[in-house]
C-alpha cells in the first residue's frame, strides 16, 4: 500500500433535534470525541477543515472559522466547506501536498433552528427555477422515480414490487439504526407503516421514504501516514477521494434516471484506490430517499441499470442484513443511513466515515458486519444538492497478517 492520509480518530454527536444547543456546542462535543479517540491534544492540530451547508442561513453564523478558533483557543488555519466530504477531500490534498501532518475535520448543522423555512431554503439552494415553479425537495426524488419507471417500462405488478422494494429499504435502514446509539430514529418500523404513510399523505413517496431534518455534528482526525503510525494502532487510510459535479438544474440534465456524477465519481475512485467493485463489501450511500439508495446501487455499478428494483425485491424475500447483488455480498448503510441515522447536511458525510471506520476497526458492536474473509474496504457516497456534487471516498485498513 502506498501512503495516503489516514484517519486516526472519529467522533460524533447524536443526530436529531438539539433544541438546547448552539451549533458550536455540537461541534465541540464531536471534536472532543475525535481528539480523544485519536489520542492527541489540541496543540497537535496544524489546521482545521470544517463544513456546514447552511449555518449562515439557519443561525446567521457568517464566520464559522472564528467559532472554531475560539473553541480551540488556537490560531491555526481553518477553512469552511459545504459538506463533510468536501472538507475531507481538501484536508487529504493538503496532507498529500506535505503541508500538514495532523488536521481536524468537522461538520455541523442546526437545521431545526429554522424549522418553518428550511424546506424553502433547501429548495432554493437546490435549483432556483424549480423553486420558482413549485418544486420541493421531495418532488425531485419523485420525478427521478417516475423517470426511472418510464425509462425501464415498469408497470402493473412490477410497479407494485418496485414500490414495495423501496418500502423495504426504509425498513432495513430503520432496523440498522436500532443498534446505532447516535441515530436520529431508533425504532423499528414495518412495511405496512411505510405504505400507510404514502397512502395517508396521498403521495408517491411518504414520510418514511425520506431522510429527516436533523441537527448534529461529526469530526475526524486525519494524519499523514507517518504520523498516523505514531498515534494509532489501526489507521484507516483514505484510498480514494473523488468529486464530480453536474448541472444545478435537474430538469435540464440529459441523464435523469440516476446521477451521472455518481457513476463518474465511482469509476475514478476505484481507479484511484486501485481496487475493484468486488473488494467493496461495506457501502454508505447518500439515501436522502429510499429511491436514492436504490438508484445509487445502480449508479455505483453494483447492479445493472434498471434492474435494482427487481434484484432488491428478490433480496428482501429473505433478507439477513446484507444485499446479494450479482453474486456480491454487500452491506449498505449499516448505521441506518440518512433515513434513520439522520441528515444534518454538513455533518452527514462525517457519520458515513464514522461508521466505516468503526466497522473496519471491528468496533461497531451489535452493528458489526460479518463478511466472508476480512473486511478491508469501505466506500462512502455523499452528495451536495440533488446529484449536483457527488463525492466518493474509499477507505481501507491494512491487511492483518
Amino acid at each position, binding site marked *: 500500500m502506498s501512503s495516503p492520509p489516514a484517519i486516526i480518530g472519529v467522533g460524533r454527536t447524536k443526530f436529531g433535534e438539539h433544541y438546547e444547543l448552539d451549533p458550536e456546542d455540537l461541534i465541540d462535543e464531536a471534536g472532543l470525541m475525535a481528539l480523544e479517540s485519536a489520542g492527541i491534544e489540541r496543540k497537535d492540530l496544524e489546521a482545521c477543515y470544517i463544513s456546514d451547508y447552511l449555518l449562515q442561513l439557519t443561525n446567521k453564523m457568517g464566520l464559522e472559522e472564528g467559532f472554531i478558533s475560539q473553541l480551540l483557543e488556537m490560531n491555526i488555519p481553518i477553512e469552511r466547506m459545504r459538506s463533510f466530504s468536501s472538507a475531507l477531500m481538501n484536508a487529504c490534498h493538503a496532507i498529500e501536498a506535505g503541508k500538514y501532518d495532523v488536521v481536524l475535520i468537522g461538520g455541523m448543522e442546526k437545521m431545526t433552528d429554522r424549522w418553518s423555512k428550511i424546506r424553502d431554503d433547501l429548495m432554493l439552494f437546490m435549483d432556483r*427555477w*424549480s423553486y*420558482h415553479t*413549485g418544486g420541493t425537495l421531495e418532488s425531485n426524488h419523485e*420525478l427521478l422515480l417516475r423517470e426511472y419507471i418510464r425509462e425501464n417500462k415498469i408497470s402493473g405488478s412490477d410497479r407494485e414490487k418496485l414500490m414495495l422494494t423501496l418500502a423495504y429499504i426504509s425498513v432495513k435502514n430503520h432496523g440498522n439504526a436500532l443498534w446505532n446509539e447516535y441515530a436520529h430514529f431508533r425504532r423499528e418500523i414495518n412495511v405496512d407503516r411505510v405504505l400507510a404513510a404514502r397512502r395517508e399523505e396521498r403521495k408517491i413517496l411518504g414520510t418514511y421514504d425520506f431522510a429527516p431534518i436533523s441537527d448534529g455534528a461529526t469530526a475526524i482526525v486525519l494524519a499523514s501516514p507517518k504520523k498516523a503510525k505514531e498515534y494509532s494502532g489501526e489507521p484507516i487510510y483514505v484510498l480514494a477521494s473523488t468529486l464530480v459535479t453536474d448541472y444545478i438544474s435537474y430538469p*435540464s440534465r440529459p441523464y435523469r434516471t440516476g446521477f451521472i456524477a455518481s457513476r463518474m465519481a465511482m469509476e475514478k475512485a476505484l481507479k484511484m484506490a486501485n481496487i475493484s467493485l468486488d473488494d467493496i463489501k461495506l457501502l454508505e450511500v447518500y439515501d436522502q430517499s429510499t429511491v436514492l439508495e436504490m438508484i445509487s446501487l445502480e449508479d455505483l455499478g453494483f447492479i445493472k441499470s434498471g434492474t435494482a428494483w427487481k434484484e432488491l425485491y428478490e433480496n428482501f424475500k429473505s433478507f439477513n442484513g446484507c444485499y446479494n447483488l450479482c453474486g456480491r455480498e454487500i452491506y449498505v448503510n449499516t448505521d441506518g443511513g440518512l433515513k434513520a441515522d439522520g441528515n444534518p447536511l454538513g455533518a452527514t458525510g462525517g457519520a458515513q466515515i464514522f461508521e466505516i471506520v468503526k466497522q473496519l476497526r471491528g468496533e461497531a458492536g451489535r452493528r458489526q458486519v460479518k463478511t466472508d474473509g476480512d473486511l478491508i474496504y469501505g466506500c462512502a457516497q455523499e452528495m451536495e444538492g440533488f446529484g449536483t456534487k457527488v463525492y466518493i471516498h474509499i477507505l481501507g485498513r491494512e491487511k492483518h497478517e
Partner: protein
Amino acid sequence: MSSEPIERRVTYVGDRLKGSRCPFCGKEYFKPRRYCGNCGRKSLGKMEEIDFFYEKGVLETCTIIREPTNRFTKLAPFIYGIVSFHNGKVRVPGRLTDMIVGEEDVSLDELEGREVVPRFRRRYSVSESDIIPTISLAFTFADEYYPYQQYEILKPNKEYDSPGIVGYGVYVSRFRIKEVGMDRSVPFIDEDAITAAVEAGKLALIHSGVESRLIGKVYVGTESNPYVVNPIASKVAQVLKLGEEGSDGVQEVDAVDTEFACKAATSMFKDAVALICYPKDPMNYVMVIGADNAQAAPRYEPGGELDYFVGYGGAAFIFGKRDVIAEVEGWCSCTSDTPDFWRRDLEPYPRHGGRFTGEPAYFKHIIKAGRKLMEKMNLKPSDIDYFVCHQPNPTFPVRAATLLGFKPEQYQPGIQVTKFGNTYSSSSLIGLAAVLDQAEPHKRIMVVSYGSGAGSDAYIFVTTNQIKDKRNRQKFTVKYQAENKFIKYIDYATYRMFKEGL
C-alpha cells in the same frame, strides 16, 4: 421581503421564457446565454435569441405536490413536473395551472406525455407590500380549455382611409360559478387583472397577425389593478414585446393605465384612432385593453350586492389602418359627476349607490351617448345591425337597448353577461367581440360603454370584407369560451378563495 433586482431578472426571463439557440449546432437553452457549450468561443455573441412564449411543450414527467414550500401553500395541491420544448432540446420545470387537484387520486401516467401551453400567471404568494412575482412556467393542456395557437405574422396588405380594429382577443378564465341563472367567470387563484390583460393582448396579436414591435402605444383600462402605483401596461408591453425591443431590456413603446370604472378602456378607442391619424408622426398600431378581476365585497357585507354579478376577464383591441376588420365611423361621449360606484384608496372593495345606480347613472348616460351619436350621424336604430352596451347584470342592457329603440335581434348577440358576469372594463368589449366573431362584412355596430363616476362612450363601427378572412385566425372565440366542455364550475367558497388570489 423581496429583492427588486432579483425580481426584475427572474421576471424578465421567466415571463417570456427567454432562451438562446446556437446558430452552429442548434443547441437550445433556457435561460439565455452568451455562447454555446458545444461550440464554445466561436458562438460567443452569435447566439440567437429565442423564447418559448408562443410554443407548445410536452409534460414529460410529473408528480403531485401536496406539501409545498411556503410560498406555494395557497396553490397546493398541484401537479409539478418537467416540460420539454422542441422535441426535448430544452427542458424546464413547471407547474400545471387551472387545475383543482382534489381529494381523489390523480393518474400521473395519463398526464405524462401530453402537450401543454405555457401560461402567464402569478408565481406564488408574497407579502402584501412586495412586488407581485409572475412567471410563464405555468402550463395548461393544449387539448383542453385553452388551445395552442401559433402567432403567425401577417404581411400587411390593404390600407384603409380611416383607422379601425385590425384584431382583437378576449380572455375569460376556465372557471365559472353558476348562480341565479347566470354563469360568471372566476379567475384561477394565480390570475388577476394583470394576467388577464397580458392574455387578452396575446390573443389579439395572434388574431391580428400584427407584428408586436409595430405597436406604438398600449392602454390598459382597469379598476382592479392589484397595485395602486405600478402600471399593468408596462407588464403587457414587456411580456408581449410591444414596440421595438432594445438589447437593454427596454421596449420602445408608450404604455399607460387608465381608470374610469367600467369605461376605462372604451374611452381610449378614440385616443388610439387619433394617434394613428396624427399626420406628422402617425403610429402604425395602438392596443387598447380592458381587463378586470371585478371586485366585490363578500355578500352580506356592505357592497356585497355586487358579489352576485362580478366576473373576470380581459379584452384587447388593436387599432390601425392596415387590414382593418371594422372601421370606426363615429363616436360620442358624455360625462357627469355622478359617483354611483366608488372605491377609496386602501379599501379592498368598491361601494355601490344601490337604487341610485340605475336611473340617474347607468341609463341616463348610456341613453344620452347613444342618442347623441345617432343624431350626430343621422342614423335611426334600424340603420344599425348590432347594439352592444355595458352589462352590469342581465336586465340593464336589455332595458337600455329597448329604450334606445333596438330590437332583440339587434342587441341579443352582444349580451354576454349571463355567460361571464360583469367583467367591468371589458364588459362592453366582450359584447363587441362576440358580435365581431359573427358579423358579416358591411354591418354597422353600435357600442356604448358605461363607467361609474359617471360617463358613457358610444362608438359606431362598420365591418369590412376582411373580417371573414381573419376569423379563422382565432380559435379562442367568445362562443368557444362560453360553451367550452372543459369549463369547470366551482362553489361559492372556492369562488371567493380564487377571487382573493395568492
